[in-house]
């Protein structure tokens, strides 16, 4: 198993682990933006660049910690002059692009970057750092592929096809959850009972609680969930009449015998009140 020497600390990691994983194991902080633990690493924002040192600490290449695979013993410097200079330069470029993001400014502050000498050079896609996390989560985790990159270079944008409200968006808010700079927001419209994903303009009706009328989740998400969740209500009621200990025993028995197919209760049979 390869050994990673990072900022004077040594950790052993599994082969093909990333430098970032090694750093976290060693409690060494490396800034990240386009990285998310549940999603494939893109290596696009470049804010996690670190230096791999050669023999006797000789300078070496700068690599992105989030996706560089460790295959042999290496020495990594996070605080080398070169690595710091380049990471700070990247942050300065991002601050010029996304001047209004509080999250970005916080990260900049933590990195020791005060401000940016660069002017804004594009009006396209305000405050978006084009990291692509929203796109990846929508495609790989949610499976809706409602948004994607459109165009090239500095005028590139994140958009739904033909810039129209997406037909596949289920307003789950995953994109907003992973957006590192707070650009994507879920807005609740009280008057129409809808959730809107800004800035993509897609809207979905919200499910409200039968009892108290509070808004819970969008209808498409509820639909998707119930399509995937299968509950046998008879079995449920039977188990409810047992004490926790006996319930556990039943579960163990069911697992060890290899439980057969459970019957499905379709959504229509469960009463939902939509506003």
């Amino acid at each position, binding site marked *: 198993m390869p050994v990673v020497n990072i900022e004077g600390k040594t950790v052993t990691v599994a082969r093909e682990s990333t430098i970032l994983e090694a750093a976290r194991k060693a409690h060494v902080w490396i800034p990240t933006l386009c990285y998310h633990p549940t999603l494939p690493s893109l290596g696009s924002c470049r804010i996690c660049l670190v230096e791999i040192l050669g023999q006797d600490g000789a300078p070496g290449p700068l690599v992105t910690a989030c996706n560089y695979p460790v295959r042999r013993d290496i020495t990594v410097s996070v605080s080398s002059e070169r690595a710091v200079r380049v990471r700070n330069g990247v942050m300065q470029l991002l601050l010029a692009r996304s001047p209004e993001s509080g999250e970005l400014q916080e990260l900049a502050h933590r990195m020791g970057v005060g401000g940016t000498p660069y002017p804004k050079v594009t009006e396209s896609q305000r405050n978006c750092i084009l990291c692509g996390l929203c*796109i990846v989560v929508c495609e790989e985790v949610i499976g809706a592929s409602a948004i994607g990159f*459109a165009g090239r270079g500095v005028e590139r944008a994140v958009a739904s096809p*033909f810039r129209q409200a997406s037909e596949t968006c289920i307003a789950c808010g995953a994109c907003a959850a992973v957006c590192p700079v707070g650009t994507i927001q879920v807005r609740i419209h009280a008057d129409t009972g809808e959730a809107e994903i800004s800035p993509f303009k897609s809207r979905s009706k919200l499910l409200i609680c039968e009892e108290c009328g509070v808004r819970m989740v969008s209808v498409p998400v509820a639909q998707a969930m119930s399509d995937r969740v299968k509950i046998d209500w008879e079995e449920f009621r039977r188990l409810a009449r047992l004490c926790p200990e006996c319930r556990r025993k039943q579960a163990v028995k069911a697992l060890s015998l290899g439980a057969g197919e459970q019957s499905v209760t379709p959504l229509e049979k469960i009463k939902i009140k939509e506003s």
Partner: protein
Amino acid sequence: MDRELVAQIIGRYERDPGMLIPMMQDLQAEYGYLPAEQLRELAAELAVPLTRVYGVAMFYSSFRLAPKGAHEVTLCMGTVCYLKGSPRISEAICQEYGIEPGGTTPDRLFTLQAVNCVGACALAPVMIVDGKYYDGVTPESALEILSALPPEDDTPEVAEASVNAGSPAAGSGSKGEGS
């Protein structure tokens, strides 16, 4: 919408999603551009997300999502033309036809392009229609010229480089040509 055409094209490439770009090239060769409906059909038939098809259409320069007009109208925005009022001409045209600079009229009569100096400053303001230069143009005269445009393109067709054509395209203006 021609469902059959899309099915045909997909079949030509053994339904391989990796051949998306050649499929889109064949589609564009048929229509002259990529109609949104056809792209939706392509995405559905091939079982790839529409965002991917749209993303590819937006990434590569050769793909057009809007048809070009029958005529090409170029307005010069160089310094002298600018000083002599070409922005007002642009405004007038855009207002009359309901387009933006760079756009094409809804009836596909013409596409309006703005360029930075065509090198004919003595003719300022300059408007070029299908290669013909008009000098000293005003908003009124520009609109007059455009209203007289025939609906069909009656200038000899400039052969667009088409792989499906049997004979090599002459003077295709390849970007790799020596300058």
